[in-house]
């Protein structure tokens, strides 16, 4: 297995230990597999928690930080954390103003986070709300949009809801803004190679030299369909077309766009994708605000990219641009 690790069973714990050691001013791990802000919960501020599997850095746990998340429960690579860990994350995020659970729509995560919410409510009397990201347009048709899975759109949701919480909005308001943000995000992914889950030790799927996976999630699973590798411009074109078929964009619209590497794909190639996206959106008269190009939500060392578009109103735009800071991102 071509990975840098010790015992695969220790992968996640050693990774978290190293991350906290490298950024002690940002992260703390008060409970095993739960990362919280080093400074602890902010009194009177609405807490925001997320949770999900490891192997996606900066998602999930990397986005704990000022103007972003308060705490995160972390599972094994690509596996849900336990309800108990999620309940701990809720407890650690609580500053007395309630806690928003903000995460991606995956069956296991939803069941566990629901249980965790019930536990936190029962044991610590913490009021919680839920907003699910369902931004992957190809994971269900528009009529069943609530069944879609959550992918890189989480980055925008963490940022925007985080800014709302940081400025002092109450739980209902933070929840409302998070929901508007989630509703405004559309994503799609593609991949050229699989990745290797440490404990499995072999690639998550097989794919030919001239093939690519389309409709890629972030858990190493195969895409929804397979296609022949195409030139970057055609890939970007198809991805944008599918996003815009779901959420039309017109002259004067203001959006942000995230061109994200799934891991191995270098920044150079993200810029080649961005170049085409920018041309296309320019031609439509769509205004791009604070484009993000880089590694924001990964699947270990997978080769591939995702594109997320979020349609902004004035409020979302100003929250997106508000200051934020974690070890992986500073705005």
């Amino acid at each position: 297995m071509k990975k840098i690790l010790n015992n695969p069973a220790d992968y996640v714990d050693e990774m978290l230990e190293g991350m906290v050691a490298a950024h002690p001013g940002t992260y703390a791990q008060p409970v095993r597999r739960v990362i919280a802000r080093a400074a602890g919960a902010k009194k009177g501020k609405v807490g925001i928690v997320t949770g999900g599997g490891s192997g996606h850095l900066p998602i999930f746990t990397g986005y704990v930080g000022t103007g972003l998340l308060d705490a995160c429960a972390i599972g094994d690579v690509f596996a849900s954390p336990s309800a108990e860990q999620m309940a701990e994350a809720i407890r650690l995020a609580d500053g007395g103003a309630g806690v928003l659970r903000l995460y991606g729509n995956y069956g296991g995560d939803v069941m566990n986070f629901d249980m965790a919410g019930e536990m936190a409510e029962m044991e610590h009397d913490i009021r919680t709300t839920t907003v699910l990201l369902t931004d992957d347009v190809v994971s269900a048709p528009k009529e069943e949009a609530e069944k879609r899975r959550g992918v890189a759109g989480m980055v925008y949701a963490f940022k925007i809801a985080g800014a709302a919480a940081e400025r002092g909005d109450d739980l209902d308001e933070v929840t409302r803004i998070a929901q508007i943000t989630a509703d405004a995000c559309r994503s799609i992914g593609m991949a050229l190679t699989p990745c290797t889950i440490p404990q499995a030790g072999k690639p998550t799927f097989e794919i030919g030299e001239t093939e690519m996976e389309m409709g890629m999630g972030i858990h190493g699973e195969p895409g929804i369909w397979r296609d022949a590798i195409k030139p970057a411009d055609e890939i970007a074109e198809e991805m944008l077309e599918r996003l815009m078929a779901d959420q039309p964009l017109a002259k004067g619209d203001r959006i942000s766009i995230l061109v994200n590497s799934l891991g191995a794909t270098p920044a150079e190639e993200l810029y080649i994708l961005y170049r085409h996206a920018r041309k296309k959106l320019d031609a439509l008269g769509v205004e791009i605000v604070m484009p993000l190009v880089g590694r924001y939500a990964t699947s270990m060392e997978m080769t591939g990219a995702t594109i997320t578009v979020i349609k902004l109103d004035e409020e979302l735009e100003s929250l997106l641009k508000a200051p934020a800071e974690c070890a992986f991102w500073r705005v």
Partner: protein
Amino acid sequence: MISSKTLSAALARIASHTEAASEELCSADGALGDGDLGITVSKGFAEAAATDLPEDIGMALLAIAKAFQRVSSSSYGTLLATGFMAAAKMEKGKTKIDPAGIPGLVAAARDAMMARGKGHLGDKTVLDSLDAVANALDHAPLEEMINVAIAAAAETAEQYRGKPNKLGRARMFGERSIGLLDPGQLAFLRIVEALRA
């Protein structure tokens, strides 16, 4: 009558049988999901089998639920934990399970799991297996219960093979899931099979 001891022995058999089936289940899940089901199930039962069960059968079932929650928080692990928890509530305070109550326990587990996972019968999930087993057991003679349960689980899996998945990760594969066994239904079959020996 089923005691905590009987339960422990059954868990050990399931743990070893699902461990043997782990690859099969992972690859079934790999075809329609993230390929972790074999690990989820075998790890969960290994943890449950390794747990010292209290005599109170309700508390024993609770301990099993907690074991699952500890080690396997994928959908299936969480659902099984939910099912065991529902059964635990019904058996609290007793030291034996009356076999006649088993269909009711399976049905209670099914209902709790439906509530937790927001699933429906017919979605091609483990819920359909539980439902079929609960119904089949209802009038089964005591000594036939295990065989009846196995048959019902096996039939359910085969019967749904030709239908599309409507829930969980497998839903995303739509028509492409037709012809494939639901991994959770297959896992359930392997679990009840282990009760035989």
